[in-house]
């Protein structure tokens, strides 16, 4: 049902009345209709996920000046989008920004960090180097990070301006809210590769944890 939108002052006044217990009858109905939104659980979940991303504190090269450093400063302020909490451990993060060229010696390390992150997780390839090798068309650099791990978003530039990184981040948020997982990560064998926190990669989870994990995984990959 469409509700006519009232001015901010009017809504504030009715909220005050509501708290005092003065709102009754038609006014109360109107108050509820103005404030309650019906949606699906998935949409609500994705809204929360998109607006509380914890990026990994992780820099590879010169792009790291722009991405994890500049965009959390006061001038650009990633906190506006709910991503100001940079995590120092991949086990607490759900976004990895590949900021710079990935050398062939670093690639297994990056992949391992990605595997250590908990689902749901996303990866942004930032700048020309991590997207395609960039100017480093040589023996030492991986020609595009999507050769060894799934990338959700590529940001062009050398390096991208912090504004471009923010725009890319907003794009990622829209992607998370729209379609959380298109299922294409399986191609990289990236689903279900998470390592268990206790005891390193070889350790096994408890049966209950494994069952809960399987259920959660089926839900996210469905």
């Amino acid at each position: 049902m469409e509700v006519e939108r009232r001015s901010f002052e009017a809504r504030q006044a009715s909220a005050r009345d509501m708290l005092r217990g003065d709102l009754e009858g038609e006014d109360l109905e109107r108050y509820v209709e103005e404030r309650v939104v019906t949606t699906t659980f998935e949409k609500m979940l994705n809204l929360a996920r998109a607006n509380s991303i914890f990026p990994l504190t992780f820099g590879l090269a010169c792009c790291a000046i722009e991405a994890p450093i500049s965009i959390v400063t006061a001038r650009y302020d990633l906190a506006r989008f709910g991503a100001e909490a940079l995590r120092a451990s991949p086990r607490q993060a759900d976004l990895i920004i590949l900021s710079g060229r990935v050398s062939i010696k670093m690639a297994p390390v990056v992949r391992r960090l990605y595997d250590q992150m908990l689902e749901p997780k996303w990866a942004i390839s930032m700048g020309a180097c991590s997207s395609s090798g960039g100017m480093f068309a040589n023996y030492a650099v991986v020609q595009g990070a999507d050769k060894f791990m799934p990338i959700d978003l590529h940001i062009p530039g050398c390096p991208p301006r912090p504004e471009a990184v923010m725009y890319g981040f907003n794009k990622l948020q829209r992607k998370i809210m729209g379609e959380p997982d298109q299922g294409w990560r399986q191609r990289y064998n990236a689903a279900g590769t998470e390592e268990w926190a206790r005891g390193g990669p070889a350790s096994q989870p408890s049966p209950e944890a494994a069952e809960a994990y399987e259920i959660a995984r089926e839900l996210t990959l469905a």
Partner: protein
Amino acid sequence: MPDGPGLELLRGEIDGDAPGAVLATSFEKERAVLIVDPERILDVLTWLRDTPGRRYGFLSSLHVADYLPAEPRFGVHYELLNRDRRERLRVKAMLPASSPQIDSCVGLFPTANFQEREAFDFFGVVFHGHPELTRILLPEDYVGYPQRRDFPVGGEPVTFTYSEARYG
């Protein structure tokens, strides 16, 4: 920095103690270079380090250059420094392309350890007597010596479809 005549004097002194070790000298761009026989590199380095009045006691750099297609192909450069007189001297040993091998100078200059490993990593020059001659920067399972001039550059060809369609 020894000047041109000073370099010849130095060569004469080395020839007196180690005849035939110095093959040639060169003095270009204010830089004195002794080109020595790779078989006797340790004799020359020891002489330069320990002789009173010379005492080039600091190896500021050890690196290799590939002079393809010249033969001998690889040049091992030792940049020596006397810190009291602030004198620099370059010692160069040329190695053949077929089997670039030379004695390690880690025993004389411990700083050469990592630099010889790097030279081995990128050029495949073997330093005999090195305590642990393994790759230092590239992954252990890397195949080839990428700083050699005949090593392919790598990377991937980029197709400039727009430019090619427009400009042919």
